[in-house]
């Protein structure tokens, strides 16, 4: 019984520490860029009937910390990538300065649309908690 109580206390302390970290630690990334690349050979794979999905239909960015979309076409042929067509070896860098939801017509997706959600930088403890909760949910879902 005493052992069980100790485990519960340790578990509670662990959850508290995790929540405290999630609420207080500033949200940071190694880079402001969210990078998506079309690897070499993608066109050949698609021609062979392989369904290759590179760009998700929904992309989540965070203002001031992770707010630049960088697309690269490393394949040997031009390809529609995100909102536009890109030449082999070309990259497209799209910065965002306003938190909002951006929709682009995109033939590469079944829905015909690509959505980029740019969220405000989470500065308050509650905003950080919420931000990390959504990020965790997105990673698991």
């Amino acid at each position, binding site marked *: 019984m005493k052992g069980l109580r100790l485990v519960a206390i340790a578990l509670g302390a662990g959850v508290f520490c995790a929540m405290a970290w999630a609420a207080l630690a500033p949200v940071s990334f190694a880079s402001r860029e969210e990078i998506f690349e079309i690897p070499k050979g993608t066109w050949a794979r698609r021609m062979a009937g392989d369904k290759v999905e590179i760009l998700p239909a929904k992309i989540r960015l965070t203002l001031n910390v992770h707010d630049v979309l960088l697309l690269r076409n490393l394949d040997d042929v031009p390809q529609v990538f995100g*909102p536009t*067509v890109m030449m082999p070896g*070309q*990259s*497209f860098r*799209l910065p965002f300065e306003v938190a909002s939801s951006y929709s*682009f*017509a995109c033939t590469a997706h079944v829905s015909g649309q690509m959505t980029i959600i740019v969220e405000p930088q989470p500065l308050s403890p509650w905003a950080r908690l919420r931000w990390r909760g959504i990020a965790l949910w997105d990673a698991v879902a």
Partner: protein
Amino acid sequence: MNRLILLAASLLLVVASARADDAATLKAGTFDPPRAAPDFGLPGSNGAEVRLSAYRGKVVLLGFGFTSCAAVCPITLGTLGQVFKKLGPQASDVQVIYITVDPDRDDAARMKKYLTSFNPTFVGGTGSEAQLAAVRKDYGIAAEKVAGPDGSYNHSSFIYLIDREGRLRALMPFGHLADDYVHDVRILLAAP
């Protein structure tokens, strides 16, 4: 004393270079390396052929839409109208070309009337469905007719920025303010 002057000069240099970097960064999404913007020749709203290469030497703002568009095109063209006002005399070095995705309704006369309401210098491009589809393919433009009585279209809503040498430099997503366009157009106009 000399050290102080040197320090002040260094600080000024750092600030100046930071401001220069800021000025050189476009608000729009940029292509690296930029490619030559695919040329096209379409029946124009001005009664002549609208050919992209004829505007070499100007910065071209290229968009796709249709005159019956209720949601996107009036906002975009209204913004571009503001851009021209804000540019002042520099606007003479800029050309807006708007290509229809709705050739059944958008003939040259209708496009002229519509575009002139935003700015008399704006030029529209129309043509056969096949001609327009070929241009859209070159630029990666999506356009899909929406089922319903009003014959609306879902279409790419951004504006391409093409520099004086005819290179496709950037893509401005829908929703940007006129000041963002003015910022980027001035950078492209100033480029050697």
